[in-house]
């Protein structure tokens, strides 16, 4: 007889999802994986590909430029996601309080997030313009700097300015998710804590934090995956410059495959990026499980 009817139901419900993912993502994924073991190049006519085993991967681990891109992307991921989480939680806490105009402010929160990445990238490029950007104008007129700065032209600063633009757009997502979770916390829990003599800090840790941890984790995992594969905003704002200081791993893959036409090598970098992402997320989920089991 095989599966129970409930099991069969479960599979039937999953079928469309699995079919779509398998066909549309499956083929490219397998193709990329296979390519990563060859020295294939993107050619018009079929030029022979040779199996090179792990040679590409060996190069991945010794390539200093990729190492730099990797470190940079980790920096981007941790700083931007960290900022988004921090800001998201703070803003959610703020918007959970009573004040006049609260509904309007909550509605406003959607604005940055609803802005398409390309518009965001363009807007901040114009704001950061070294000759007539509004950031320079504002800071100069406020007396905070004494001359116009080249925000996207200075290696150290450029990455941080890109992070600023990305965080500005994405933190509302976290804020909205956390705000929703905050609304499920029954008031009685806070009152009980007050009666027990808990101050605001303790209230946060004992009442608020456990309640929002779940939703916050969803947001965090999603944002981490997206931050690690960041591409669009870099392609649009700096194209990897200045002096390679904003080149992320995805941009690196793009360069290998599209600019240098080295499909095999590009594929090996792509697989490495995916595996790193998987490891990071797995580590985080394990941490979460451990925390919830000891809590």
């Amino acid at each position, binding site marked *: 007889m095989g599966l129970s009817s409930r099991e069969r139901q*479960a599979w039937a*419900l999953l079928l*469309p*999802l*699995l079919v*779509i*993912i398998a066909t*549309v*993502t499956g083929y*490219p*994924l397998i193709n*990329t994986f296979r390519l990563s073991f060859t020295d294939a190049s993107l050619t018009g006519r079929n030029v022979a590909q040779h199996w090179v085993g792990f040679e590409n991967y060996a190069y991945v681990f010794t390539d200093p430029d990729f190492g730099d891109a990797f470190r940079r992307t980790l920096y981007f991921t941790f700083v931007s996601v960290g900022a988004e989480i921090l800001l998201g939680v703070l803003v959610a806490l*703020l918007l959970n*309080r009573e*004040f006049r*105009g609260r509904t309007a*402010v*909550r509605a*406003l*929160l*959607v*604005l*940055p*997030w*609803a802005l*398409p*990445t*390309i*518009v965001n990238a*363009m*807007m901040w490029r*114009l704001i950061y313009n070294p*000759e*007539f950007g*509004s950031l320079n*104008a504002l800071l100069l007129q406020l007396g905070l700097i004494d001359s116009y700065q080249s925000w996207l032209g200075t290696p150290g600063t450029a990455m941080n300015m890109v992070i600023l633009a990305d965080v500005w757009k994405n933190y509302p997502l976290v804020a*909205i*998710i956390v705000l*929703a979770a*905050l*609304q*499920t916390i029954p008031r009685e829990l806070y009152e009980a804590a007050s009666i027990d003599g808990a101050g605001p800090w303790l209230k946060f840790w004992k009442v608020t934090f456990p309640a929002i*941890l*779940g*939703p916050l984790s969803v947001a965090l*995992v999603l944002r981490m*995956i997206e931050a*690690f*594969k960041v*591409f*669009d905003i870099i*392609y*649009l704002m700096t194209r990897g410059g200045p002096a390679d200081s904003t080149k992320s791993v*995805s941009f690196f*893959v793009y360069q290998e*495959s599209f600019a240098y036409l080295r499909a095999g090598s*590009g594929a090996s970098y792509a697989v490495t990026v*995916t595996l790193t*992402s998987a490891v990071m997320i797995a580590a985080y989920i394990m941490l*979460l499980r451990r925390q919830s089991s000891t809590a």
Partner: protein
Amino acid sequence: MKWRRLIPQVLTYTAVIVLVISTVAPLLWLFIMSISSTPELTAVPLHWIPHQADFSRYGRLLTFAAHSAGEEFILAMRNSLAASFSATAVALLVGIPAAYSFSRMPGKRMKLLYAVLGTYMMPPVALILPLYMVFGALGLLNTVAALTIVYCTILLPFVTWLLKSNFDAVPIEIEEAARIDGVGLFGVLRHVTLPIAKAGLGTAALFAVLLAWDEFFYALLYTNDLRAKTLPVAIADFAAGRATDYGIISAAGILTAVPALVIAFFLQKTLIAGLSAGGVKG
């Protein structure tokens, strides 16, 4: 002591003002750029308010003359709406049953959920060329259909996971009560689970539409002309090349954000209510 109660209030309102300014200021500036002339924007020190508001760029973008910026913008908007909404529709249609399965009938299948999430981790840059060849062979290049298919794969992992969390929060007792009354699986979904999770559905839909609306690189490579070109690609076109006009780029930016904002505002009420109804658990 009224004093003590006043300080938190003052702090709250100050924080709110800072929040509002930091959120709105860049957008306000974008709007001002769209109505300023280039000489004014390149002046140092900067004029914050233009002496002459020039709304002509909006006119140019919204008038439908052959080969004009307006035609490009309007058709690109049409393509973006088509691709985003169809992809979201498919994602919901497929994601709801899948999420329900993961939520109510977990077990070994949960590994599949993680596998699906795993496909989300591969950089699109790596997948884009194999798919290009497949679409080319099928004659699907430069069609909204191709974009819809590709966007589904981006939206599905996310939507499924989000919906699963929402369904987890719907009390199973209500469903079991309906089952006892003899309601079948789809009946339970339609009449019990979905109405309760309605707001969560709205959230997932909003996230999906915005993700698809945002997408740039696939659209850049898979579309050639206005039959399928989406807004992000059209805007990149405006910003490229020689003789760039900051004003029209800004105006295009504002107009592109508008549909997204409209949808967001609409779903915003259900958003907060919905995410809170049961919360999104990991």
